[in-house]
């Protein structure tokens, strides 16, 4: 049996090659994402243990609120603490350290945009101990007016030691002399983030820190354990400040970066999963066709005494071999892919040390297991079908196509689809009482089940739909057109299974397109409704840092400006969870930005109080007049009265407060936006020119009108959409391989028929046309199914998000474009099979044996 299996495999080399490819791509993605994230993971581990090299204990403020970088930093540590710490026994050396965000200007005086993480400013302590930074070139900054950059950033911007570098921190750019280049252990920057390093007094000056520090780093006297030192230090520290071992800081930081990496890994694995799911359809279809084509041979085995189980075993062995081979190739492909990702990572500003990619045993095993299991599962049904071939089939004509009833298809497919829809509906609309599966996973599983259900039913309507799609072909393309149409309808199961693979890709593409269009449409509507300002000044690049309040002060004096409203942005925790906080200028904000006041008013918001978004008020169960508990990093827990309930799009925050309240509770005081209304009779252009006269000194801010605003959000949506498209392209590509595969197999089956057509005078061109348009019908069929499902999914998701104000927008033009693209893809998928069909040896095809 083994020999027969291997021979059978080798006999179908070409047919299996495309199947192998389908699995290889999927497995490659799985392996690639593991290899890349493993590699990056250990790089981060090394990096952070490197950054704390020579440091044993760190003193830092206790961070109670769950904050992201930059929004809400706690109070700094007073300089006196450093003096106290230095006196503690077991502290050999202690230095203060400071961090903040900075922006560098490039050689043209523009804000240097980073492709990835932001640039940090930090202090570089004057100590003999090794620290986070190691000097690569030049010298360490030792005086005001000096700066060192990480080598990667300096290279990127083309700065050399001795150059002048302009840096924006809070106010206008300040010039520094570049005195040195730094690295981090092995790497030239820190996980993609750049650094500008100052000596401590300079850092304190530019970060407005007075004589305080963000952290204090301590080296222990030899023989004193960090833990012991932590215990000794803690009692003497002020409230809100803690001592921790440097090791745990490194672990925390690495863990935080790895969490982000985990999202990335999940993202890649989701698409790998989609690709493999599409792959299963193709593998199953291939095996089914091969089994059908080998009916006579299999029957012969049976007639010669092979049991049905042996026949099943034969097909499954074949599948296992295919699985192993393609997983092996997939692993190699994955390593190649990880290399590509590494290059992309460097492009986005990261720096990987010369470390080799990490291929762990786990990766190898997972890749092999995934590939083999997917192949075996896909081959299961065809294998059982092979086993059901009766020995007498050896004597029968294989070509006789009995039209089996499709009843079972409906009976099985409808409940499957219904089950999938149910899963999706639960995931989208029902609050789950348990946590072991996330709603998103449930929706994903539901979608997968719906795909299977529809794939099971779809042969039932293959003939009518393919007939309709191909209806104009006979007229437009003459005989090749009508043959293409007939051929696509002749084996409904095969056409449907082939189209199903493309259906999945297109359903997801349409879903993404619909969601993007809906977001875009919603944003446009929100901007139209709420954007009452003529111009808005906001920060360029990395959001959330804000800009100097001096800008708004200067703008207020401009005669062109009627009124303006400043806003600030921060984070706090409200009740159980974190909350975004916006501070607004209470007297003017409502004139420049429309929100729905549901209850109360902004009149008293200027005193310490908050205005809550309806949904937040509802979950907290509070109304106007009640008090909420809100915790700030700087001032801790506060009780504030609720003076208004509002609703509205276009504001990220759920808590609004006055600038005054914000100033009391947040340490950093930077404006996030300045909304501007121009005087009557001042055009947007001249208004913009006037505003520019102030902001020109601040390269870190931009001026936008309503149209700019829309364009900006749209370009963000488009960026995300194109990223998703690129990933989905993969599964569409696999689906196209499937079409190529099915067509090639069908052509082998139809050798005689094609030979006959050639003999009676069909030209090669006409043969190619016939195959090509059959392919177009199959792909358009798949696309039609997919787009219909995509619309359904999109509608459901938008419905589920409608509470957040999302409006359903059907991007008709784009969906029709997708349909058209699927048709073109069908043409591409047919190139190879059509070429092979047109090259068939006519004599072989018609010879009778």
């Amino acid at each position, binding site marked *: 049996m083994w020999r027969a299996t291997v021979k059978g495999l080798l006999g179908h080399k070409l047919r299996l090659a495309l199947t192998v490819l389908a699995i290889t791509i999927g497995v490659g993605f799985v392996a690639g994402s593991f290899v890349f994230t493993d590699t990056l993971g250990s790089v981060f581990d090394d990096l952070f243990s490197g950054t704390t090299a020579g440091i044993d204990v760190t003193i830092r403020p206790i961070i109670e609120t769950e904050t992201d970088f930059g929004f809400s930093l706690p109070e700094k540590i007073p300089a006196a603490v450093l003096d106290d710490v230095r006196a503690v026994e077991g502290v050999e050396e202690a230095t203060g350290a400071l961090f903040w965000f900075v922006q560098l200007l490039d050689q043209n005086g523009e804000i240097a945009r980073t492709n990835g993480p932001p640039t940090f400013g930090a202090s570089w302590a004057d100590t003999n101990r090794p620290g986070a930074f190691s000097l690569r070139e030049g010298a360490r900054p030792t005086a005001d007016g000096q700066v060192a950059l990480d080598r990667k950033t300096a290279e990127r911007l083309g700065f050399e030691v001795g150059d002048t570098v302009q840096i924006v921190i809070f106010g206008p750019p300040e010039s520094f002399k570049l005195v040195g280049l730094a690295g981090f252990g092995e790497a030239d920057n820190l996980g993609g983030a750049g650094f500008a390093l100052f000596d401590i007094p300079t850092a304190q000056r530019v970060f407005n820190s007075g004589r305080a520090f963000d952290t204090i780093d301590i080296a222990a006297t030899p023989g004193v354990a960090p833990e012991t030192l932590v215990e000794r230090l803690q009692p003497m520290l002020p409230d809100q400040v803690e001592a921790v071992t440097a090791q745990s800081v490194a672990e925390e930081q690495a863990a935080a970066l790895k969490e982000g990496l985990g999202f990335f890994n999940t993202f890649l694995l989701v698409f790998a999963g989609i690709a493999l799911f599409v792959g299963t359809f193709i593998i199953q279809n291939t095996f089914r066709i091969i089994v059908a084509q080998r009916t006579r041979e299999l029957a012969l085995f049976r007639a010669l005494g092979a049991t049905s189980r042996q026949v099943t075993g034969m097909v499954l062995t074949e599948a296992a071999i295919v699985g192993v081979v393609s997983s092996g190739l997939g692993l190699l492909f994955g390593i190649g892919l990880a290399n590509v990702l590494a290059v992309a990572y460097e492009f986005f500003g990261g720096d990987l040390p010369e470390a080799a990619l990490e291929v762990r045993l786990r990766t190898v095993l997972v890749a092999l297991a995934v590939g083999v299991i997917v192949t075996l599962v896909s081959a299961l049904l065809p294998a059982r079908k092979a086993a059901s071939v009766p020995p007498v089939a050896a004597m029968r004509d294989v*070509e*006789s*196509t009995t039209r089996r009833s499709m009843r079972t298809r409906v009976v099985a497919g409808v409940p499957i689809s219904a089950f999938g829809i149910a899963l999706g509906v639960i995931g989208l609309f029902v609050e789950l009482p348990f946590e072991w599966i996330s709603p998103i996973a449930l929706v994903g599983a539901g979608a997968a089940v719906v795909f299977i259900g529809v794939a099971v039913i779809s042969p039932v309507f293959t003939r009518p739909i393919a007939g309709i799609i191909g209806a104009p072909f006979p007229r437009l393309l*003459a*005989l090749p057109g009508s*043959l293409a149409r*007939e*051929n696509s309808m*002749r084996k409904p199961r095969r056409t449907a299974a082939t189209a199903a693979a493309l259906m999945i890709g297109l359903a997801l593409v349409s879903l993404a397109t619909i969601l993007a269009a809906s977001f875009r449409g919603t944003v446009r509507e929100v901007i139209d409704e709420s954007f009452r300002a003529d111009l808005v000044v906001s920060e360029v690049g990395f959001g959330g840092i804000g800009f100097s309040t001096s800008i708004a002060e200067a703008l207020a004096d401009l005669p062109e400006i009627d009124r303006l409203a400043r806003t600030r942005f921060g984070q706090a925790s409200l009740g159980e969870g974190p909350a975004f906080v916006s501070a607004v200028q209470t007297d003017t904000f409502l004139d420049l930005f429309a929100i729905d006041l549901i209850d109360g008013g902004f009149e008293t918001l200027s005193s310490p109080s908050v205005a809550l978004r309806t949904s937040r008020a509802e979950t907290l169960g509070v109304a106007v007049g009640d008090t909420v508990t809100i915790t700030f990093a700087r001032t801790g827990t506060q009780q504030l009265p609720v003076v208004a309930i509002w609703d509205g799009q276009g504001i990220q925050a759920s808590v609004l407060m006055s600038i005054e309240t914000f100033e009391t509770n947040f340490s950093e005081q930077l404006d996030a936006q300045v909304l501007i209304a121009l005087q009557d009779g001042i055009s947007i252009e001249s208004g913009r020119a006037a505003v520019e006269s102030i902001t020109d000194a601040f390269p870190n801010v931009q001026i936008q009108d309503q149209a700019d605003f829309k364009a900006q959000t749209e370009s963000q949506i488009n960026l995300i959409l194109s990223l998703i498209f690129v990933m989905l392209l993969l599964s569409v590509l696999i689906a196209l391989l499937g079409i190529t595969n099915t067509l090639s197999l069908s052509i082998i089956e139809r050798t*005689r*028929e094609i030979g*006959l*057509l*050639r*003999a*009676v*005078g*069909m*030209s*090669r061109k*006409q043969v190619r046309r016939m195959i090509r348009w059959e392919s177009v019908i199959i792909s358009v069929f798949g696309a039609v199914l997919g787009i219909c499902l995509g619309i359904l999914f999109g509608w459901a998701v938008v419905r589920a998000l409608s509470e957040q104000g999302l409006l359903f927008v059907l991007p008709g033009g784009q969906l029709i474009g997708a349909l058209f693209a699927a048709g073109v893809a069908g043409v591409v998928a047919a190139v190879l099979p059509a070429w092979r069909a047109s090259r068939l040896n*006519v*004599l072989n095809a*018609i*010879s*009778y044996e």
Partner: protein
Amino acid sequence: MTRTEIAARAAGAVKVYGEGDAQVRALNGIDVEFGSREFTAIMGPSGSGKSTLLHCLAGLDSLTDGHVYLGDTDLGSLDDDELTRLRRDQVGFVFQAYNLVPTLNALENITLPMAIAGRKPDQTWVDEIIDTIGIRDRLQHRPTELSGGEQQRVAAARALASRPDIIFADEPSGNLDSTSGAELLGFMKEAVQQLGQTIVMVTHDPAAAGYADRVVFLADGVVVGEMLEPTRERILDHIKLLEA
């Protein structure tokens, strides 16, 4: 019977398959002519080169050496596209089996060469053929719904429908029972006598060859004999003579 024109001709035709030791000379410098409006049968033992000759004459295969002509056209001078067009417009085929496209019904199969060419079939002519072969009530059926005999008659009707200069048939009745075979051959004979067709048919059945106007005997890739106005008995006698 006077020979008016030559419809097809082979001159010194050589066809060699394979190389070295495995070399087979399927046609060994054969010279033969086929007259217009004549029904010629080609006979000979298995492997004597009958099918090869037919394929080369029909533009399905190319010679190793020598020439074949259809009318005045030297097929060796045509490229693949020209040969395809020639097969479509000037040649009709009836093979031993699998003559029909399974997705097309009988009528569509009959008019297939015209459809390929994008030409309208001559309706009265097609009607005449359909009535002659007697399959009018089966026109809408697909090949799988037709009997073997009906399939071969549809194939013959297709060969006739485009009024080709010549029809080649390779053992057309080889897969049929004797009644169906007789019907088909009778129809072919009628096509020559009444419709003025030219048919060249390969067969190893003396009874089938008996329908022809002339029989050409092949052995080892050359013509070894010829008989006009053959009958089954005369053919059998002649074969015995050849084998002796």
